[in-house]
């Protein structure tokens, strides 16, 4: 079983990210359990979403404390939310960065960075880093195929062809930028 912890602010799509990854894993006949942890439910507040993935059904229901992978959607949380605290040795981190972002040096953790918000602005026209990071996660971790992520993203926006097209493009750009 692998455990993923996603750092974001409420409204940045962390739950959607976890859900889409879960669905993508389902297309590969793997099991996933995606779940959020809310603080006080208000836009902009730091929050986490989690994902467990495995070849067999997932039973563990606690939050994730020692992730195999972290995804940071909002780089302003790196320090305040101690994103790199307790990550497993050998972990991988997929981090959306801005020009001002300073990354900690964490031994045993491979960090993949990309300007996901900027990419999202170029492709979608709004700073939603999460779909870009989905592509980046697929490439960086190898846990899920790009095609599965694209299928899940397409499904999510199937009623809105324009939004669908842009998000699919955003995933691809994320994949290419790792």
């Amino acid at each position, binding site marked *: 079983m692998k455990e993923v912890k996603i750092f974001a602010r409420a409204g940045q799509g962390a*739950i959607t990210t976890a859900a889409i990854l879960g669905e993508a894993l389902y297309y590969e006949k793997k099991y996933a359990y995606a*779940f959020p*942890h809310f603080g006080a*439910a208000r836009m902009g507040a730091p929050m986490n979403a989690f994902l467990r993935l495995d070849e067999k059904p997932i039973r563990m229901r*606690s939050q994730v404390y020692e992730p195999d992978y972290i995804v940071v959607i909002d780089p302003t949380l790196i320090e305040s939310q101690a994103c790199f605290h307790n990550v497993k040795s050998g972990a991988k981190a997929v981090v959306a960065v801005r020009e001002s972002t300073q990354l900690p040096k964490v031994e045993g953790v491979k960090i993949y960075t990309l300007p996901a918000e900027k990419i999202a602005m170029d492709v979608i026209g709004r700073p939603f880093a999460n779909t870009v990071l989905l592509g980046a996660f697929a490439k960086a971790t190898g846990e899920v195929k790009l095609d599965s992520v694209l299928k899940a993203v397409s499904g999510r926006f199937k009623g809105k062809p324009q939004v669908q097209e842009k998000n699919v493009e955003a995933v691809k750009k994320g994949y290419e930028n790792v």
Partner: protein
Amino acid sequence: MAEAAKLCRPGVVAAYPITPQTHIVEHLAQFVADGELNSEAINVESEHSAASVVLGAENAGVRSFTCTSSQGLLLMGEVVYCIAGMRLPVLMICANRAVSAPINIWNDQQDSIALRDSGWIQLYAENNQEAVDLVIAGYRLGEDQKVMLPVMVCVDGFILTHGMEIVDIPSQEDVDSFLPPYTPPFKLDVNDPMSFGLLGDPSVYMETRYAIHKTFEDVLKKIPQVGSDYEKLTGRDSVRLVEPYKTDDAETIIIAMGSVCGSVKDMVDDARASGEKVGLLKVVTFRPFPKQQVREALKNATHIGVLDKDISLGSDGALYTEVKAAVPDKKVNGFVAGLGGRDITRKTIKSMFQLARKEEKSCTFIDIKPELLWEEFRVS
């Protein structure tokens, strides 16, 4: 869960939104608006009204669904008792959440436990698959003419209500073949007028309570039968009284209800890998309480630990009280954990395995923060 309720074709859906139940009802309202579910979705101004609407609908012979949580369930409380007393097989999902004050939207099981004596059948789901299964089987069970009692399917708030995982949803044809239309033996009917829920004076009241109590004895026999039929339909044996997990040779057994059972199963496997003989007894049916099955599953255990996500303040956890009464000659340790959403971690569960082996204590709070307590309340 909304999909499962929809497959049961309720003719009336009434609920008032409350976290973490809200999106179940939103989905059902959407199904009705989209014409996917031929049902009356009735907007109400409170949970008390929601419960009253489903009471009335069932009394008129219409299958009904409601869903609530925490304060909402407590506000329904008066009507919850009426629904059972009037023998109306309403089905409710309770998205288990802590009770105020202080206000807390997160998970524990205090809300449904507070209504445990109301005459409702209470079933606790470990995961979202079981939630689906228990809703479908719950209607069949409650509407059995020999039962005619309401059913509360309890699902841990956020952990299940906001947890996303893959579930098998039976086809409409399968559910239709398993769940016949609701045909109550008595109902409100202008062509055959009757009164319901009237005064029961001292000459009759006690018998109405005794009748429910006796019916619960039958329900203990019915649940395995309904479970067996459901298994024939779906291949899943999720509808049951208890689920023993590696208890046969276990010296230490933890007993719990709801989603935490999944975590405990993982920890049982971990502990067994290092040679510890531990097991889990999952209680699916809390009302009626399957005393005999619990006794049977615990017969070889030396150390027993009961995990409650609730507390009868001034006494012990609700499940602890039941288990201790079922095996009075055995050593049973009681643990209260996970109140108000405090996470039950691998470490929490490990500490329960250890404490279960120590001298008997009926009520030990796990993961308490001493720094938040008056000095005299701190325990070493």
